[in-house]
């Protein structure tokens, strides 16, 4: 919701005033060190990765330094099965799936245990079921307000047609969009929803209904002929939804209607007195659909 409100406000504002942005040099204080645990596990049959890094000074332009030598174990509490992640490089710990195997199972409970220098960091979550994607539509981009551009090439927009799971439960979704298997990963592409309503409504009446704009507009990304548009709908926990919306606000927080910056929450538990771990642990199920623009 916050993001649509912002899009509309800024677009309206831009119609009237040409405000300007300049990159400036600022001296910031040194912050203290943190461990960042990035553990988004999903049901897709690809290698699953948990990434452990240090935080870095804000203006550092290098990859955050990875932490090696940690032990990373994911446990399916429902099945009592352990998955041991092995270190590869740059702070990445990988679990390679066997054929026909899958980590994330619907309604199973999971826990994550990360041990860094003998200090245990833990977290737990539940896997949720996903929405079904009916189809992805493609339409000619007729230079509407967001899609407009000077290029004379014909471009297309994709629209998502998806349906929320039918029952009394509220579902939370993270919609990821790809062009030719490349994820749109700019800050403005982070697209999270409640029951497919664009995150509009906290107490949705729209259970089991179709997804609605703006989430179905897929960030107004443009496609050319023969491009492939792929959409993944990750079904996430309410807490994960909150984490992602908070992150979304923090990484798109400029302009007239910026909110006071705040630190994103974490679901990693740090033993008292030890170096704080931040980041997020999530296990999601995924539905995927793709279409070729013709």
């Amino acid at each position, binding site marked *: 919701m916050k993001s649509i409100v912002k899009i509309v406000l800024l677009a309206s504002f831009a119609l009237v*005033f040409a*405000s300007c942005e*300049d990159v400036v040099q600022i001296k910031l204080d040194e912050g203290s060190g*943190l461990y960042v645990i990035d553990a988004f596990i999903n049901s897709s049959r690809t290698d699953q990765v948990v990434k452990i890094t240090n935080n870095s000074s804000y203006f550092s332009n290098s990859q955050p330094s990875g932490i090696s030598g940690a032990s990373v174990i994911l446990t399916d509490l429902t099945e009592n099965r352990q998955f041991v992640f092995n270190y590869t490089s740059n702070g990445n710990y990988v679990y390679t799936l066997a054929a026909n195997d899958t980590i994330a199972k619907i309604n199973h409970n999971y826990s994550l245990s990360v041990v860094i220098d003998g200090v245990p960091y833990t977290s737990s979550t539940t896997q949720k079921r996903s929405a079904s994607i009916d189809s992805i539509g493609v339409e000619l981009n007729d230079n509407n307000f967001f899609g*407009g551009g000077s290029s004379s090439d014909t471009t297309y927009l994709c629209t998502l*047609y998806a349906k929320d799971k039918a029952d009394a439960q509220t579902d939370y979704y993270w919609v990821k969009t790809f062009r030719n298997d490349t994820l749109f*990963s700019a800050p403005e592409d982070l697209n999270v929803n409640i029951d497919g309503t664009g995150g509009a*409504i906290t107490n949705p009446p729209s259970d089991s209904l179709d997804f609605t704009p703006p989430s179905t507009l897929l960030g107004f990304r443009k496609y050319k002929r023969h491009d492939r548009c792929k959409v993944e709908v990750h079904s996430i926990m309410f807490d994960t939804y*909150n984490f992602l919306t908070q992150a979304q606000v923090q990484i798109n927080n400029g302009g007239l*209607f910026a909110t006071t910056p705040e630190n994103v929450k974490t679901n990693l538990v740090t033993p008292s007195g030890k170096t704080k771990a931040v980041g997020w642990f999530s296990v999601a199920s995924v539905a995927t659909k793709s279409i070729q623009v013709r």
Partner: protein
Amino acid sequence: MIETPGKTGKEHKSNYMKKINLLILLFVTNLLLAQENATVSGYIKDAKNGESLIGVTVYKKHSQQGTSTNPYGFYSLTLSKGTDTLMFSFIGYKTIQKAVNLTTNQTINIELEEEGKDLDEVVISSEKADVNVKSMEMGTSKLDIKQINKIPALLGEVDIVRAIQLLPGVTTVGEGASGFNVRGGNIDQNLILLDEAPVYNSSHLFGFFSVFNPDAVKDVKLIKGGIPAQYGGRVSSILDIRMKEGNSKQLSVNGGLGTIFSRLSIEAPIIKDKMSFIIAGRRSYIDALVKPFVKSSSPIKKSKFYFYDLTAKLNYRINDKNTVFLSSYFGKDVFGATVFSFNWGNATGTLRWNHVFNSKLFMNVSAFYSNYNYLLDFKTNTSSDQSFKWTSNIVNYSIKPDFTYYLNTKNTIRFGLQSMLYDFTPYDTDIKFSSGITTNLKSEHRYGLENAIYVSNEQKLLPRLTAEYGVRLSLYSFMGSGTAYYFRDTTSNTSLPYDHEKKYNQGDIIKTYVTPEPRFALNYVINSKSSVKASYNRMAQYLQLISNTAASTPLDVYTLATNNLKPLVADQGSVGYFRNFKDNMFETSVEVYYKYMQHQLDYIDNANLFINEKVESDLIQGLGRAYGAEFYVKKTKGKLQGWISYTLSKTERLVRGISNDKWFYSRYDRTHCLNLSLNYDITKRWNVSANFVFLSGTPATFPNTKIQVQNYNIPYNTDGIRNNYRVTPYHRLDVGATYAFKKNEKRRFKQFLVISVYNVYNRRNAFSIYFRTKDGVPNQTEAVRYSVIGSFVPALTYNFNF
């Protein structure tokens, strides 16, 4: 009295009788003395157009006895019987002396003539220009619309709210931000009254222009401290805007063609000197101007962006004792493109009746209606036609009888009551799915009833010492029909867990708050040139704006005080020294204030403020404190006029769970604030003006590190302190010039050309600094200075009137 033993009961009794007799005698003497007095009362108007004049001083020549006209131009002055000379004086008008033979109460209506425009004409006036020293008012600034007209304005458009921002103690978070902050108060703490009806969003085009059409405005008064008992409902300031009544002598037209919008106002008598009207309208036309020049493929072609407003007023002077006024405002801002449309606007209406019971008792009854609403409509561009529409509104009804009793030369008593009903609809959404199914999600209405009763007395205690003391008792109830939600307590800075809810029927009281609000002011006149004033006031506010963005948006909704949210209460004390120099040519003042606020609204991290029926679970209430010193010098006469003001201040907040539970700077804290506004008449035709503003940068929260999650670089502050930095200071110079065309002496038609340049030296003032990932470079992050106005802005406006 000491009793001596041995006296009988009878003697005792006679003693008491003596005392009583004495009292009766005193009382009768008093009455007899009172009969030695007579009261002069009446209305004072402008001779040219019949507009009533506010704040005209009426006094007995060579004496301290005097009064001034109220917002309806009415005065009442009680003097001892005999022959006297009365003086009627007002800045910019010729003073009238009138010999009166006071034998009984009399009505004297006066029309004052403007001072000649010719600069070489010598104006002889024994003008009582020391009002600022003598009056009870402190922390109060009055701006004459003529004065506002001379200030160089953004895009050449005269604007009341922007003019107010040049006064001491008033700041804003930046250009484009709506509203203004007074002495450390949030923008929702200003009661903005347009002919007594509250205006909830005073901005057009976000915050660039205010909704008040200067052509229809007569008088502007901002009260920051020592707020009298008749005002209440907001804790920081009262912005009292009075509309013109309309020329009651002859037809008069005012108009202008500007860079952004054009204006036209018409005023005329319906019955000469009895009934008149004014109607004033404005519309922006950038959209219309731009469209012919853009390609058909441009998104501008299919978009819309404009605003308009209409202000109208009708007044009927039935007789010397009764006058009625009907005033109304309607305005809207509209934005839109193919995939969305967005609009907001206010509508207000006020009906007022002035009644003079007798020369000592004046009454005004106002009844008003105010409505603020917005609409946001979002839809796909496809045949399947999915859409999402959202509206919200605030409706207000009120009645307010207000009495002024001019008891005698020493006491003026003011009393009255106000009853106000709030009806809020936080959201009403219509969602249409591609399958054709539609759904409506609507919040319940929220009702609040605020009643207040007040009484105050302005009393001359000693020849040099005047006090105004009073109390306002406000009673507020959060009302049904509706659902009250109850929450459990939890860790600070997290959403409160829902506990239970209770349904209430229409008229049921869910929660009541009663706040006694004492008001007190003192003025000690040291001599005719200087005085010391002090004041204390407590104010209660039963609704607050829910807004956690840097600049408030038109989409922000207000919340009433509820069973979970306590009313905002502020206590303010201030002391000031006022002195005039050079025969009142210079008015100067120094004021210091301290303000303490309780239950100021704040937000938990990741608060969900939109379309959330349990929004209260994400709101927290904290403390605020603000203190500062304001220095002000104003030159009121001569070719060069203007003012300079400097404010040194600090505004802080304390909220549980935020900034490690320590006091932090509020978003609108500005340590130093310097304003300079000058205008100079070069010749009869040319007037030049300039503004200079310097403000300390606003506080901001900067990260010290970043964390990378899912390849997103999220800023992170490991210290957790809010507003730990400041953006660079804001400063700006504006200049303007007005040229009056040569006038045909036989005709009334006058023309003016106004040239202005805003932000002359082209500074990019930082509205904010924010942090982002460099476009297309995943690991690189940068700090960005966001400036709302990035260059100088020249403008040309043509104005005319006849």
